[in-house]
C-alpha cells in the first residue's frame, strides 16, 4: 500500500515537530519514513499509519534527527565559506585587484593628508557597519518573506544568513585602537598603511557576502540542491 498525499504532508509536519525545519532535509527524511512505513505495512497491514511512524522514528535513536541535521549544517557551512572565498579571490586578481589596491591607497593618502588615523578609520568603520547592517536587514527580510510565501525553509539559505564572520570584526576595531595608541601626537605611517589594508579587506568581505553571494543565492542553491529546482 502506498502512502497518500495527506500522509506525506503529515510526515513533513512530523519532521518539523522534531526540529527539522528545512525542506531539503525534510524531503529526504520524509521519503525514508514513507518507504519504511510502506514496507512495514507489507509485514503487518493492521498497523495504523501513526503506529508505524512511531516505530520507524525510534530507529533514528535517542537524538532523533539531530545527528542528521548537525552533519548537514557542517557540510553547508563549509560550502558557503568556499563560495564566499571564490568571489572574494576575484578582488585579488586583475582587473579587480587594481580597485582593491586603489581603495587602500586612497584611504592611506587621505589619512596622510589629515594626519590622522584614529578618527578617520573609526568613521570608515562606522560607515561599513551602517551599510552592512542595512544590507543584512534587507536580505533577511526578503528571505523571511520568501519562506512565508513558499512555506519552505532551506538549510543552506539559513546557514548563509547566520554565517559567522563577526569574530573578524574585532580586527578593524583593534586597528583603530592601535592607531590611537601609536599616534597620540604624531601620525604613524606604518599604522596608517596597516589600517587601510585591513579596513579595505574587511569591507570587501562584507560586500562579497551580502551583495555578491546573496544575489547569486538562487543559482548556487540550484547547484547544491537538485530539489530546489524541482520544488520551485
Amino acid at each position: 500500500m502506498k502512502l497518500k498525499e495527506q500522509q506525506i504532508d503529515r510526515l513533513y509536519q512530523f519532521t518539523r515537530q522534531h526540529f527539522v525545519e528545512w525542506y531539503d532535509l525534510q524531503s529526504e527524511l520524509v521519503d525514508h519514513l514513507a518507504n519504511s512505513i510502506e514496507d512495514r505495512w507489507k509485514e503487518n497491514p493492521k498497523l495504523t499509519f501513526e503506529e508505524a511512524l512511531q516505530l520507524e522514528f525510534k530507529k533514528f535513536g535517542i537524538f532523533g534527527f539531530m545527528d542528521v541535521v548537525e552533519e548537514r549544517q557542517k557540510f553547508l557551512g563549509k560550502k558557503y565559506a568556499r563560495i564566499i572565498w571564490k568571489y572574494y579571490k576575484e578582488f585579488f586578481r586583475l582587473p579587480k585587484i587594481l580597485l582593491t589596491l586603489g581603495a587602500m591607497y586612497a584611504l592611506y593618502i587621505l589619512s596622510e593628508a589629515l594626519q590622522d588615523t584614529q578618527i578617520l578609520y573609526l568613521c570608515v568603520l562606522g560607515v561599513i557597519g551602517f551599510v552592512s547592517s542595512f544590507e543584512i536587514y534587507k536580505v533577511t527580510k526578503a528571505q523571511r518573506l520568501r519562506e512565508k510565501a513558499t512555506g519552505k525553509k532551506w538549510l543552506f539559505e539559513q546557514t548563509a544568513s547566520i554565517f559567522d564572520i563577526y569574530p573578524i570584526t574585532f580586527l578593524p576595531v583593534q586597528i583603530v585602537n592601535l592607531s590611537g595608541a601609536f599616534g597620540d601626537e604624531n601620525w604613524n605611517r606604518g599604522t596608517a598603511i596597516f589600517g587601510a589594508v585591513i579596513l579595505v579587506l574587511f569591507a570587501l568581505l562584507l560586500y562579497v557576502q551580502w551583495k555578491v553571494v546573496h544575489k547569486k543565492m538562487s543559482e548556487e542553491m540550484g547547484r547544491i540542491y537538485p530539489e530546489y529546482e524541482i520544488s520551485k
Partner: protein
Amino acid sequence: MKNSQLYKGSLNTIIMKLLGENGRMYGYEITQKVKEITKGELNITEGALYPALHKLEAEGLLDVEVEKVDNRLRKYYKLTESGQTETVSRLAELEEFIKNMQSIVNPKLSY
C-alpha cells in the same frame, strides 16, 4: 548497527562499495540492501547512515540527483569520479585489515 564499534569504521566503505556496484541508490535502499546481503545480520541505523552520506557528499565523493517518485521527492546518491578511485583504495585497505585481523584472531588459518 550490530556490534557498532567494529562496523562503525567501515560504514563509509560499505556505502561506497554498494554505490559502486549498483550505480545510484537512495538512503532507504542502502539500508535494505545491506540487510539483504548480510541476511539481516548487519543493520545500518538511519541515524548513522544519513550523516555518513552527507559527509561523503561534502568530501566530493558522492553526487546527488533528485526525482519525484510516487508523491514525494527521492534523493539518489552516486559515486563521483574521485569517489570511484577512493572506493578502490578503501576496499583494498579494508581487505588488508581483514587479513591482518585474521592472522591475529586465527593464526593457523593465516597464510
